[in-house]
């Protein structure tokens, strides 16, 4: 083997959207420049259009029946698989998060580790949320009465603008844990960790269409999704105050469930979440059934 | 020869009116879907190996109604199908012939000629297959044509619309009329299109309705809708023929059709037969597979058992 007289040129990655289990470019053919915290060019990301958003809704709707109908145990296994696969690509995400957020390696590593553990946290919730928020109701009459949570449907998630990975995972995982399907609009400035997450999901047994990831201008993609009549809910985590109000108004058209943005700092994403990001996208269904007595004359037993 | 039910229809007294018939059919025990599917799945885990597999493969080949039901069917296509049915594996004469070829009525004569001198029967779909949406005289003419052309077996479709509307007597009378049109020579298979009947309770009722009306076989489906034969609906029909024989003494055959493509699938169905209806049905007089691509998979698996190496699609004939 002869000695190399030049420095090896590395291979750039083409970042693509993740829609319906596939990795398309934007239908619009557009990209935009993504830079690190110091302004150095990192990559070109797809600049999604409203048609990409529309396609994502179709994919999410198509996947909903199967995902909502999967057993909670099965969903838990798959979410845990995401954690396993992420652990194997930890170094890649540490680098991407460090670049995206201008963090030291160790601080970025803390973000990635917390994000992996967050998948584990929600993996454990899939088969417990019904036991915590559902249950039998002692109605005053000869009826069996049971309330159970069900996923609301297709949920649009505006990922947080500042926390490119831990924040993203913290808003996405609770949506799909309960059986919803999601369309994520990645943080506008630093979408690369989100786009890379698509590659992990695609190899973690998450069925195609359960998570769809779009990059681009939040203010361009979000309004058509907020107005879309086949979207059931929207998480406004990544919207500023003005956009959030505009989207909430649009969402009122078919009474989407809206999770309003909270003002949070980055440390917020490290704290153990409660159940509110799951319950925001759950419907409660209550079933009545007569019990009656054993015989026509009533039971003396 | 098998008992033909036409001379003395069993349970005649329940067919005096639509309401008596309805009362009878709705009085059959209900079917719990989860339990039925669990039982079918559990029988699907039987492990059939070596000698048992060899036996099952040959039995399955002998039960195939090799089928072509396309608008594009031609005499040439039907002739090649007939040749294949008579001698499925040209490289191995020990491979049994299939039970029948199954074609549209206008192809019966060609089919008959192509299997002449063999044990292979000619089955014909009739009664405005697959939708069955035609007037009774048209359906009967369809049947008579096929029988006149030499069909040994008629695969009729029931009027699912009438069944779902609760007009059981109409369905019954049609089957009786078709049976009569079959005459003494042709055996009648009654197709329910289970995918359209939708519920297992309906499939059980249709099975009894068909048997009461004189069906020689009850058959799941046409192969033309989304859901065709499944282990669960076939298990349910096997329970029906088992119970019907216990009650009336009349044995009726079962034919799952559509969607059975692999040897593994076929063997699962044979296990269902063996452990539900019993050994008396393990014969092509009483059990059939309505299939086309299944045959080649059976032949490839057969070659594997004979030669010890996996076969490939180039070593079996295309239809």
């Amino acid at each position: 083997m002869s000695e190399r007289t030049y420095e090896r040129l590395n291979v750039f990655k083409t970042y693509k959207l993740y829609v319906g289990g596939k990795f398309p470019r934007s239908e619009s053919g557009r990209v935009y420049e993504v830079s690190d915290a110091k302004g150095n060019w990192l990559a070109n990301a797809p600049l999604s259009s409203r048609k990409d958003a529309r396609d994502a809704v179709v994919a999410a709707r198509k996947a909903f029946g199967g995902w909502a109908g999967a057993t909670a145990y099965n969903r838990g296994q798959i979410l845990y698989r995401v954690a396993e696969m992420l652990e194997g690509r930890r170094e890649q995400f540490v680098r991407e998060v460090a670049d995206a957020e201008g963090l030291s390696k160790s601080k970025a590593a803390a973000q990635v580790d917390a994000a992996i553990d967050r998948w584990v946290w929600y993996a454990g919730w899939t088969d417990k949320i019904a036991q915590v928020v559902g249950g039998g109701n002692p109605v005053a009459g000869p009826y069996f009465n049971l309330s159970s949570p069900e996923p609301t449907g297709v949920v649009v998630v505006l990922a947080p603008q500042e926390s490119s990975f831990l924040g993203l995972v913290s808003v996405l995982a609770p949506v799909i844990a309960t059986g919803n399907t999601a369309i994520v609009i990645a943080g506008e400035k630093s979408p690369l960790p989100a786009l890379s997450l698509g590659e992990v999901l695609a190899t973690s047994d998450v069925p195609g269409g359960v998570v769809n990831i779009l990059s681009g201008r939040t203010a361009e993609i979000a309004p058509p999704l907020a107005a879309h009549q086949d979207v059931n809910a929207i998480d406004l985590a990544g919207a500023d105050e003005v956009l959030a109000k505009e989207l909430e108004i649009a969402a009122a058209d078919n009474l989407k469930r809206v999770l309003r943005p909270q003002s949070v700092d980055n440390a917020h994403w490290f704290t153990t979440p409660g159940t509110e990001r799951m319950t925001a996208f759950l419907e409660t269904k209550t079933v009545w059934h007569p019990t009656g007595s054993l015989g026509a004359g009533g039971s003396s037993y | 020869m098998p008992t033909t039910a036409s001379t003395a229809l069993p349970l005649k007294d329940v067919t005096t009116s639509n309401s008596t018939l309805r009362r009878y059919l709705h009085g059959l025990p209900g079917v719990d879907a989860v339990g039925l599917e669990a039982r079918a799945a559990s029988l699907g885990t039987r492990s059939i190996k070596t000698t048992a597999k060899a036996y099952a493969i040959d039995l399955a080949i002998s039960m195939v109604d090799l089928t072509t039901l396309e608008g594009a069917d031609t005499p040439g296509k039907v002739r090649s199908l007939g040749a294949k049915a008579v001698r499925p594996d040209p490289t191995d004469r020990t491979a049994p012939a299939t039970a029948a070829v199954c074609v549209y009525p206008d192809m019966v004569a060609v089919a008959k000629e192509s299997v002449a001198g063999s044990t292979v029967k000619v089955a014909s779909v009739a009664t405005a297959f697959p939708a069955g949406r035609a007037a009774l005289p048209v359906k009967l003419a369809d049947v008579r044509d096929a029988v006149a052309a030499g069909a040994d077996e008629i695969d009729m479709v029931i009027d699912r619309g009438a069944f779902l509307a609760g007009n059981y007597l109409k369905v019954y009378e049609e089957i009786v009329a078709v049976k009569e049109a079959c005459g003494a020579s042709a055996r009648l298979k009654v197709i329910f299109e289970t995918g359209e009947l939708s519920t297992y309770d309906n499939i059980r009722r249709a099975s009894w309705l068909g048997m009461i009306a004189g069906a020689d076989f009850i058959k799941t489906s046409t192969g033309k809708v989304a859901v065709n034969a499944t282990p669960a609906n076939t298990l349910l029909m096997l329970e029906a023929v088992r119970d019907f024989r216990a009650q009336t003494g009349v044995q009726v055959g079962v034919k799952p059709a559509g969607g059975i493509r692999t040897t593994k699938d076929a063997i699962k169905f044979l296990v269902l037969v063996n452990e539900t209806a019993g050994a008396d049905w393990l014969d092509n007089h009483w059990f059939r597979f309505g299939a086309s691509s299944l045959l080649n998979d059976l032949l490839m698996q057969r070659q594997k058992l004979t030669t010890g190496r996996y076969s490939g699609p180039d070593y079996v004939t295309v239809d």
Partner: protein
Amino acid sequence: MASAPTPAPVSAFASAFEYAPAPESRSVVDIAPSYGLFIDGEFVESADGRVFKTVSPSTEEVLSEIAQAGEADVDRAVKAARKAFEKWSALPGSERAKYLFRIARIIQERSRELAVLETLDNGKPIKETRDADLPLVAAHFFYYAGWADKLDHAGFGTAPRPLGVAGQVIPWNFPLLMLAWKIAPALATGNTVVLKPAETTPLSALFFADICRQAGLPKGVVNILPGYGDTGAALIAHPDVNKVAFTGSTAVGKEIARTIAGTRKKVTLELGGKGANIVFDDAPIDQAVEGIVTGIFFNQGQVCCAGSRLLVQESIQDELLDSLKRRLSTLRIGDPLDKNTDIGAINSEEQLARITSLVAAGEAEGAERWSPACELPSAGYWFAPTLFTNVTQAHTIARDEIFGPVLSVLTFRTPDEAVAKANNTQYGLSAGIWTEKGSRILAVANKLRAGVVWSNTFNKFDPTSPFGGYKESGFGREGGRHGLEAYLDV
């Protein structure tokens, strides 16, 4: 049966469809000639050097020689568990969760090996260990893993505390599954454990010790002490044990209750049963027959929640029994490693003797005995599926738990009578209801004094679903959110 079946025409296929043997490979499991006790992360000899043999009940072959724990070993193990408790309970729940997730995954990876091992040591069919025991074991760890960091959502206060060292004694009928039911919730809640497997089935627990090693579980968190009843008694009586969990016979359960009287030990007992499987005349008959078979012949009937009493409405008795007998004739009895075997061996000579004597009592008291024609292997411990008709509430076989493949058939006329008969027992673990009428299911379920009521199904288990008995079937619940309470200071 109205008339004789129509004979089928003779054909080339007149021979029956005989399933060729399809044995699962034994080579996937490597059983060492001897095993020690697992204390503080290591396999050690017992203090007094005692050992016992474990045999395969289907062949009587000796599988391995096992160290037998005595009082000194119990003390050593409890001390190890106590020492480990401090750090284990102080770990963040999310870290404990990850250990349990690791264990769940390793069990999934090694499930075929463990299934074969369990079949060899217990005698139950590979079909059951492969399709029921092992998937449930992994699922149980997976489920409780997820609770470890969510205990403040479980409804037992905001920061529920673990109890300390749990002494756990498990039976031989579902060795690894019972281990999972005990260890998974204990660890998730921050307790450490000393577990005694049954003397006839110690192997899977010892393999589990190896899984703990692979998972990197801290030393002393799980300790396994094989032995007989005296080992269990010593463990339960040990003063530094905070929690006692027992699954087994009602007689031993009562003994345990006496032993711990006056202490502060928290206890859960999962004991015997005499489950009633009630079939109404509007039942889905074919599925009911399957449910009856599953109810009493699953695991050779060696199941505490078995549906050992069939209560059938008189109006459908003949029809149902005909179907049931026909179905029993298709059961395949024999080599538990054969993938087509439905009924395997009885776990031990002792258990076989108990079944045999109770069946003799049934005959002596005038009940009518029936079994399908079946050939039993010559070596090993076997008992043919057995059905008794003409059984009344007064018969021994209607009152005593047989813990074998023996079904007692009783009849009833009205729902009231069904409920009265179902409840007329000292036990209260399980019951089944078969009817297409939803309101009847719920009305009957309301009246039944049993901890688990299955309707239009039987013997269903899930880690999310609590399990446990009324009356002398014990107290406390295992499984589900409720199962956490047994291991928390609430």
